[in-house]
Structures are given as C-alpha cells and as structure tokens.
C-alpha cells in the first residue's frame, strides 16, 4: 500500500453541497438526488465503520429522517454533512441499543469485503471491485481502532467533516477529537506496518 494513488471519491465542495441542499429544501428533486448521491456513500462508509453489515438499513433510516426534517434544516454544506452524520450516528446507536447488532467473531474484513465486492462487481466494470476491497479493508482497519479514534477518523476522512464539525457531531471538545484522530492515524500506521511484516 505504498502508493497513495487510489481512486478518490471526488467530493463536492461544501459550497456546492450547500447549494444543492438549499434547492432540495425548496423541493427540487434533482437537487435532492445530487445531495443523496454525494452523501449516501459517505454515510454508508461511516455506518459500516460503526455497525458493520447493517449499514445499508441504518443509512436508509437516516435518509428518511433527513427527508422528513430537511425543511427545517438551516445551514451550509459542511453543516449538512454534520447534521446527516449526527442523525446517522444516533440511528446507529439506537440500533445498537435495540440489540440488533450481532457480535461477530469473524473479522469485519471478510464479511464487508465480500459484500462490497459482490455489490460493486455486479455494477461497475473497470476493476472497481478490487478497489473496493481495499476500501472495505481500510474501513475495517479504521473500525478496529479504539472507538473514539475510529469515530474521529471516520468523520474526518469518510464524511469530510472538519475538526470542529466532527467534534460537534461527537459532542466532544475539539481538542479531544483532534488528539483522537491523530492517534488513530498513528495506530493505523502501526497496523499497516505490522501487517506488512507478516
């Protein structure tokens, strides 16, 4: 994994997202579609890191909440990301609390990788499946971090939140979240190196 040249989801900038959100709020379906396609993969990635296999279902619930409450949302793109992440997070917590997350002893890698590979190979051509196996592995590596680190890294990296917004979502002090995310990176590096040595 020496190369940093993997496919990168080209993220809408916050301004463009905020604009789409505003138009969606006004009822413009196409704009809502744009918002959805921008954010859904991120929410899925985030949720996958949090709760694994049930991410799709919880993401759906999240979106229905978003649709319901969109009219009341005020804010720009970054804050919309944060808002959506918060909803997803609470949905996931509800899910956990309802006991619907089954403890799994198998590594997240396998199930998620299989699932993702299956899904993408069915749809994409150009070797996306391969890439997404690494996505799954990357997500699982992040998910295995201590919880506070994992969440901080997921929010920053996967959802594209800035530091203060990630702290907002987590309800923690920005400094704590910053530290957690930096430690998460350090530990990820250790993991990578440990894996390579084998």
């Amino acid at each position, binding site marked *: 994994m020496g190369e*940093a040249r993997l496919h990168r989801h080209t993220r809408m900038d916050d301004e463009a997202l905020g604009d789409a959100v505003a138009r969606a709020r006004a009822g413009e379906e196409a704009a809502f579609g744009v918002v959805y396609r921008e954010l859904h993969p991120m929410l899925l990635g985030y949720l996958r890191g949090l709760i694994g296999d049930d991410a799709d279902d919880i993401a*759906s619930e999240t979106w229905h909440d978003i649709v319901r409450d969109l009219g009341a949302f005020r804010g720009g793109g970054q804050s919309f990301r944060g808002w959506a992440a918060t909803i997803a997070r609470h*949905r996931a*917590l509800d899910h956990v609390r*309802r006991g619907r997350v089954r403890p799994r002893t198998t590594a997240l890698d396998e199930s998620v990788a299989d699932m993702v590979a299956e*899904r993408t190979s069915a749809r994409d051509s150009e070797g996306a499946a391969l890439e997404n196996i690494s996505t799954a592995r990357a997500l699982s590596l992040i998910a295995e971090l201590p919880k506070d680190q994992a969440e901080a890294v997921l929010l920053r990296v996967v959802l594209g939140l800035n530091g203060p917004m990630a702290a907002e979502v987590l309800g923690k002090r920005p400094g704590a979240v910053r530290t957690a995310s930096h430690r998460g990176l350090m530990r990820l590096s250790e993991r990578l*190196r440990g894996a390579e040595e084998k």
Partner: protein
Amino acid sequence: MNESHEYGLQDDDARDESVPGGRGPGHGGQDLPGEPGGWPRPAVAEQLLNGEDVADTDPRTAEVAGLLAAARALPPGRPQDEAAVLDAFRRASAAGSGARRTAVAVPVVRGRRWRTARGPRPVRLLVGGALAVSALGGVAIAAQGGGLPHPFGSSDGSTHGPSAPAPTGGGTGTAPGLPRTPGATTGSASPSALPGTGSPTPGTVSPAPGVPTATGTRGLCEAYTKAEREGTTPEGSVIARLAEAAGSAAGVDAYCAALTGSSPAPGHGHGQRTAQPHPGASSNVPVVPKSATPTGASVRVAPSAPRHK
C-alpha cells in the same frame, strides 16, 4: 490485526493508548503524535485527515494516505434504497407544498446550532442517559468479550444533548414508504433517544390518539398500513389525503398508527415532543456545543459508571 482492543467503555478523555495490547510492535508509548519524533506531526495529521496532498518524506505518511484514500473510495449504496428515498422525498415535497408549509411549525431560531430547539428536560435526559449507558455498556462489554468489530459500543457520544439534532428518537422514525417502518414508532420509545430532538416535523407529532377527524381516514390508513406491511407502495391519492390529514407526508405513519391503534408504541412520539424543528438556527457553521449545559454535564459523567468493569 487481532490484538485485543477495547471498544466502547472509554470516553474521549480516556487514554486509549494505554490499552494493553493495543499498540503496535516496537512501540512503548513514547511515540505519540505531536511529540518530538512522533508520527504524525499535527500538521501532517491534519493534512491527511483533510485528504490533502502531503509532502512528507516519512514513508508512513504515504502509507496512511493510501489507506485513507481507500477508505474514501466508497461504493454507492443499494439502488432500491435510493429509489425509496427519492420517492419519500417526492411525497414529502408534494405534501409539503401545501400542508407542510402551514402545518409544520416554523423553526425556532434558538441557539446557534442546527439541533432542534427544545424544552428543558434535564431529568429525562439524565435518566435516559443512564439507561442508555447501561445498555450500551453491556454492548461494549460484549464487544470486548466477543470481538464486536466496531467501535460503537459506548454511549459517551450517544446521549449528550449538544450534538443531537437526531431525529432518531422521533416518533415517526421513518417516512412512509420505507418497508422497515415498523421500527418507526418504537424508536421513540427509547428513553435516551434524545427526547425532543427527533421531532422536527410537528406533523408527525400532532396526530396523536384523539385526532378528531379520524373516522373518514381510517380506511385510508388501513390501506396505507397494509401496503406498507406488504412492502408495496400505497396509492398516491391515499398518501396525499393522509398527508393532508396528518399534516405532512412524514407524519402519516404516526397518524395512522394512532388512528388504527396499530402503533407498536402508541404512547410515544407525541405530547412531549414540543420541540420545534430547526436544525439550522442561523449559522452555517454550528457553534461548538456548550458542554457545560446541564444535559451535557450529566451525560458526560454517566459513562464512567459502567467503565470500571
């Protein structure tokens, strides 16, 4: 990769790095980020987290950048989910142009964040928080024993009011048309579901038991509920009329649940949901939560309870 990790029970201030076995080979804890010689330097870390290109000779930087880039290469979701959400949006918009605009209370701009404004309920939150903490504590413990491979066992983030615009607890949890709606009203039952946070659409709330105009719409509700159960899409006209009766498309579930008594948790989701919708407040960038508020404080304390196992 199978080192023992501790998920969940620690909150942000806990020194996760002190977890035994959690550290990689060859490190004794002195190589913390930000410390001399430690990797990553804060500036590098921020660049990595932002997805910016980083000019750094340390090979670890490129390695982790690669990993993070992979994590960003996210596959799309299930097509049927997109269709369902777009459909929900369409219906909400259709209902919204009429009923919703009038029925939905105007967001109260109170505070500067996008969470919903809501009445004081520190006690409920405290109790709810405590319950959630114990419940989640159990999960977290299970996670430790059973290798639950995700970090979401802890409650520390779950219950603090500040970050909670969460419609999670909302009485209507899900919108009509979503096959999984049975959970909708149940969601609201959870004590720690951030009471009040969930209800940005008052329309979902109003149609509590005792709705006066109920009789005529009962049949519609039954048709609607049946369609929902069977996973089919209720007729547009049915939905439109129900949405009108309920005050918003999103409120149809709760409305019908109240009307037909089919609600899994009929008592929840109304009455106490005085919260006004209003994620937005006025600023684009929400202000950092005042964690010193009673709610924040109470919840922050709570997680320590299950922590010492």
